[in-house]
């Protein structure tokens, strides 16, 4: 780096501080000049920060090689040439609670208020493959999402919603193949063929073992099921996003931004490898892989993460796997603002946090976005809170002007340097994971889980020590007597009974012989190692329940138990 390239001559005095290459010269000054705060020295994830950035920080940057125009490889600046001028991001609010009727009503409400895509939250028994009348489901039915036991519930869930016109995202992992089969059959009943269905299946089982912990089968057969869905959708559902490779839950579990980026891309590479082993051509399935990231509190760190993710994935796809279709190179992603950053104290402040996080996602080039509601530290959002969260996106999209120019921060010394640093650190992690034998080996060793728990604890200590400020929690606190009570969405405990009755009604009215045959065929397909999608679709048509299908597969694949290590 030549002296001429420096933004300021070495040792230039700026105000009271002494700087060199943007770094404070310690030793020449008191360790912490008056007015400086320790937390300014790093990002939220612990990346070191200088006081300012200049040309020398991006001296190695080659525009064509490292950035490219928006819409041009390696897509650091975005996947579309026109970005939001061409089309705004999809405003997709995650919703689901109670029975299919309640959730269907919330879907209609959100669509009426300008939401442009649906996103289904399922309850815990559904996520874990238990029917609503299973003893383990007691007290949990419809609490964290909508209860789905059979095709009958899915039919009600999408009543009055034309599946050829509305795209749907389904947050389901362990039983993802079953829910995809149900969606295909609901389409059938509406007269919409699979090739016209558009939407996203989360279907990212690896991050369940790493972070979210809603798993059913062991990792290897689970990965096989993921490949089954990819193979099926590649043939029959060209508009379907087969996997939403998710960093969101990794971050919520307490990881740093670097870990979120690294572990998510490592998961993505694992799915790619598994599909290649199945004999699929990279360009046949890679264009339909999508991603899902968290947008947390540290504004620029998040933007750097999104930009680095695009560049890294594009290079992996093109350079490592030889993909030739530009769509295979593009990392498309959904973003949700950070639920774990919300506070129960002074919850109205959450609207401000969510606004900043949503803005980071938009400046980072997201394809779709969920903004959290202000009451989510305490319960699922009320309809009013969900509407305000949607309005937040609408203000960013239509009032702020930030959607007019693609990648407005591209070329910022700071943002480019941070993007590079994010990539460098994430690559180090990916190399460590690969040296361990890959993601599944790293999960079995507990490496990924421990790295996250370590980061979570470090963060919480920093909050406890006051090194990290959480407004309204460890600073600017008001007495709890002054806290305004926030309206809470109440799930009527009666809904559980209603759901169980419905399930029993379905069991009584279906053709038992057809169900039995379908489940036997499913078990046989699983034992042979065939793609189970056709057998699942047939079981769904026969109104086999989710629990019955999962039990059939458990008998073949076994179940996964996590070792209880701290």
């Amino acid at each position: 780096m030549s002296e001429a390239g420096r933004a300021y001559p070495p040792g230039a005095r700026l105000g009271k501080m002494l700087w060199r290459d943007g770094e404070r010269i310690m030793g020449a000054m008191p360790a912490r000049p008056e007015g400086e705060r320790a937390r300014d020295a790093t990002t939220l994830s612990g990346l070191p920060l200088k006081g300012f950035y200049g040309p020398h920080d991006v001296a190695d940057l080659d525009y064509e090689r490292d950035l490219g125009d928006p819409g041009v490889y390696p897509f650091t600046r975005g996947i579309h040439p026109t970005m939001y001028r061409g089309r705004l991001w999809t405003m997709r609010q995650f919703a689901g609670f109670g029975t299919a009727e309640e959730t269907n009503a919330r879907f209609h409400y959100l669509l009426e208020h300008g939401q442009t895509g649906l996103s289904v939250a399922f309850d815990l028994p559904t996520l874990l493959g238990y029917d609503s009348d299973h003893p383990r489901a007691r007290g949990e039915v419809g609490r964290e999402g909508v209860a789905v036991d059979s095709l009958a519930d899915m039919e009600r869930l999408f009543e009055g919603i034309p599946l050829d016109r509305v795209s749907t995202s389904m947050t389901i992992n362990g039983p993802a193949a079953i829910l995809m089969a149900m969606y295909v059959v609901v389409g059938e009943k509406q007269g919409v063929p699979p090739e016209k269905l558009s939407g996203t299946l989360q279907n990212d089982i690896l991050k369940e073992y790493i972070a979210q912990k809603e798993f059913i089968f062991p990792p290897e057969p689970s990965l096989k099921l993921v490949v089954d869905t990819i193979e099926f959708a590649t043939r029959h559902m060209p508009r379907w996003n087969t996997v939403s490779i998710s960093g969101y839950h990794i971050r919520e579990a307490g990881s740093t931004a670097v870990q979120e980026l690294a572990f998510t891309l490592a998961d993505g590479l694992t799915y790619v490898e598994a599909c290649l082993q199945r004999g699929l051509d990279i360009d046949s399935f890679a264009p339909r892989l999508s991603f899902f990231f968290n947008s947390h509190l540290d504004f620029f760190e998040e933007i750097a993460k999104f930009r680095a993710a695009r560049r890294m994935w594009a290079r992996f796809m093109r350079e490592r796997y030889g993909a030739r279709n530009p769509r295979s190179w593009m990392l498309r992603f959904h973003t949700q603002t950070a639920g774990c950053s919300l506070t129960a104290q002074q919850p109205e402040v959450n609207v401000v946090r969510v606004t900043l996080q949503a803005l980071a996602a938009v400046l980072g080039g997201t394809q779709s976005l969920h903004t959290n509601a202000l009451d989510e530290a305490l319960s699922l959002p009320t309809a009013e809170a969900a509407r305000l969260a949607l309005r937040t996106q609408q203000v960013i999209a239509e009032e702020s002007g930030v959607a007019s120019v693609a990648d407005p921060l591209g070329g910022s010394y700071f943002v480019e340097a941070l993007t590079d640093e994010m990539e460098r650190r994430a690559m180090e992690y990916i190399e460590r994971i690969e040296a361990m034998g890959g993601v599944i080996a790293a999960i079995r060793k507990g490496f990924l889980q421990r790295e996250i728990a370590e980061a979570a604890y470090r963060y919480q200590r920093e909050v406890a020590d006051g090194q990290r400020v959480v407004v309204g929690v460890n600073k600017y606190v008001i007495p709890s007597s002054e806290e305004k009570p926030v309206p809470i969405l109440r799930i009527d405990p009666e809904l559980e009974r209603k759901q169980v009755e419905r399930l029993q009604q379905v069991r009584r009215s279906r053709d038992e012989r057809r169900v039995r045959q379908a489940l036997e065929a499913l078990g046989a397909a699983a034992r042979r190692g065939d793609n189970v999608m056709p057998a699942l679709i047939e079981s769904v048509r026969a109104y086999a329940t989710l629990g019955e299908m999962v039990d059939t597969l458990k008998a073949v694949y076994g179940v996964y138990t996590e070792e209880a290590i701290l």
Partner: protein
Amino acid sequence: MNVPVGPASTAPPRPIRVLAAKVGLDGHDRGIKVIARALRDAGMEVIYSGLFRTPEEVAAMAVDEDVDVVAISILSGAHNTLVPDVLDQLRRLGAGDVPVVVGGTIPWEDAEHLRRQGVRQVFGPGTDLSTIVDSIRELARSRTAGA
């Protein structure tokens, strides 16, 4: 002159034992792992239940491990069903005196409800780590003193 001393001043006190328990179907283990670490750093012995425990399993572990406090983490919204079940099971096993504390996404009114059922403390989101550690230490001591 001999000053009589109680046994407490000669034998080192047993460290406080805490069962950190996840009950129900939610896999959110960030909070419980952070709390478990904080309790350990404060010199307590922590037994972690692992995920997806039933109320019966939690109560049985509390008795088998002879813990001073049961700390339940629940973020699924099923607290009004599952936490009273844990209390019932503890009573059934004759361990109704073991203090139970709960942490998680618990709305205020539900926290009141759980306290009325016999839960000693409910820690909502944003509770300071030291508040939790101190409260558990206090509950363990008052139980030992009362025994």
